């Protein structure tokens, strides 16, 4: 009873905040509603017993992605109202395509039949001892069974990082950089000059 009440609360707020994300006039409000949506989705994960995913959602999506969005939205002077004006003309087509896809997928799910081996296959990687704590269970397989994928994901992130640097970094001229060794090794004679100034004249 209590669980279903919590579920419906989280679900309702999630749907509502998602709606606000796309309807809010102020883009900053959109991002804030997005954060609210993420937190409620994290709540739903906790209800499912997937607390690790809930943490990740809160830390990565709220902590990093959404805050980054917020920065971008506030830093860039984009008139979202103008963008949205043109976007309205695609709504009918979008609704049509989306509606057809929704009906088709509903039909697929209505007639859904899983393979008889499903239960046995799906339990495969998880150690029975770690069942109760899925953070531990994930930790146990992530660096062992799925080592290769983990490392490959690292390479993907590296490529993303190289890309960000390649596409944005440019050598600027006229920038004064601090060079510590140059500063330290400087001699008195390099910077100070003693001049004898006779009175009444300049240098």
């Amino acid at each position: 009873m209590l669980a279903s009440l919590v579920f419906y609360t989280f679900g309702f707020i999630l749907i509502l905040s998602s709606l606000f994300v796309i309807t809010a006039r102020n883009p900053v409000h959109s991002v804030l509603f997005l954060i609210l949506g993420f937190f409620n989705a994290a709540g739903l994960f906790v209800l499912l017993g997937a607390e690790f995913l809930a943490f990740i959602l809160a830390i990565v999506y709220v902590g990093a992605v959404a805050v980054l969005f917020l920065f971008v939205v506030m830093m860039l002077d984009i008139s979202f109202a103008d963008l949205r004006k043109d976007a309205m003309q695609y709504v009918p087509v979008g609704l049509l395509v989306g509606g057809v896809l929704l009906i088709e997928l509903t039909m697929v799910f209505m007639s859904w039949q899983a393979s008889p081996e499903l239960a046995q296959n799906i339990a495969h990687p998880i150690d029975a001892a770690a069942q109760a704590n899925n953070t531990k269970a994930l930790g146990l397989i992530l660096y062992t069974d799925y080592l290769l994928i983990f490392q490959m994901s690292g390479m993907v992130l590296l490529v993303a990082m190289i890309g960000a640097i390649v596409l944005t970094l440019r050598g600027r001229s006229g920038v004064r950089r601090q060079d510590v060794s140059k500063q330290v090794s400087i001699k008195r004679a390099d910077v100070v000059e003693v001049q004898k100034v006779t009175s009444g004249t300049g240098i």
Partner: protein
Amino acid sequence: MIQSVDVFQDIKTAMPEVATAAFALWLLVFSAFKKHQAFAVASFLSCAFLVGIIVVCFGMFGQYDEPVVAFGGLYIQDYFSLSIKMLIALGTLISLIYVYFDMKQTQIGRFEAPVLMILSMLGMFFMVSAHDLLTLYVGLELQSLALYILASFNRHSYKAPEAGMKYFILGAIASGMLLFGMSFVYGFAGHTGFGVLEEVLNGTTYNVGLTVGLAFMLVGLAFKISAVPFHMWTPDVYQGAPASVTAFFAIVPKIAAICLIMRLLNGPFGGLQDQWVQIVYALSMASMVLGAFAGLVQTSIKRLLAYSSIGNIGYALMGIVAGGADGGASVVVYMTVYMIMTAGTFGVVLSLRKGGVAVEEIADFKGLSKTSPFHAYAMTLFMFSLSGIPPLAGFFGKLVVFKAAVDSGYIVLAVIGVLTSVVAAYYYLRIIKTMFFDEEDAGMDEIQIVPYAAQHGTLVATLAVVVGFCVVPAVLIEYAEVLVRSLF
């Protein structure tokens, strides 16, 4: 199959990938600290490394008579994957030579270009060795992500960021489709490993959800090989990217993607052949028809080659439709020949510079027979080969594919293939006509020939293969039959 458990054993099995990853990381750091000539040194070292990788793959051949599965079933190494990796490394080597000289001339070269190409190649290696849907996906992403960056590598051009952006957004949608399809398959079978999927799916009767998943996965993969109707990005990206990067796009990633599709459809989805054959049939037919007809009206050589590559993917898919070891072998032969021909064609295009940049328009080829007879005759041979005129290599590529299709009873598809190659021959021959019979315009003396021996050497080598293939056509065809045996 042998299931290894020892991680050192796994690393030994995945030697090409481990070496490539280590080299890419080292090269990145090494070049970042190199103040002068970083691009030249990085390119040269990468070329040397690629030669090394080909040797390593060749050396590993003897130990993989039987497929070896490593990393807990995520990775497979067999004859097929090793051979295709050699092909991919060769294609990357040729592209890297082009990229180096092209970027040197346009002065956009930075050491990240060879590093990204090596990382992209790493993704392709994983694609051909994928034995799990996860490996497949992450390999594909690694490969594509590096390509998106390479597409917009020239920041001074307004077209390059457009190309990169289009490629990135459409690629992301395609990846979404692929993942969506995978989730259906996982929802049905409860596992992502190819071995388990093969067992589970082999005995199943028709299942709607599973077929929908398969269809979505094929949509995602069809995008990566730019099969019609998922080809829209190809002409724009080919046109916008630097010419040598376009060469890389046209030559290498398609081989990896086609081989991945072959392994996927014949391995885990082998039991669902009745369902995927229709989809691949439609993709093949649409690609051949559109590739032939849309190419007729192009004025840009890069767009023309984009449509040519779309058409060629149609022929390769015909081999997959034909199925079986013969069909598989025909795909491998076709892709190998296609790679060499396309590499040669781009070699000619990249040798001709107008204001430092590779020629863009077909009109720039006017009167080439007088200004540079060698390039005109080389281009003629490549164009004859692409249109499938015997005795050049392209003819044998088409021949084996058509033969496989006819033997499997897909006569309609084969007839369409022959007809569309006649249509496509028009635009290939039009270039020859432009070179030999059109009078040069007033501005023609602007065209310069690059002075680099290495680039011309590559061109001559591809030319030698295209011409010399007819002497020993059976070698490659028999070899292809041996190596696809590990798939079936």
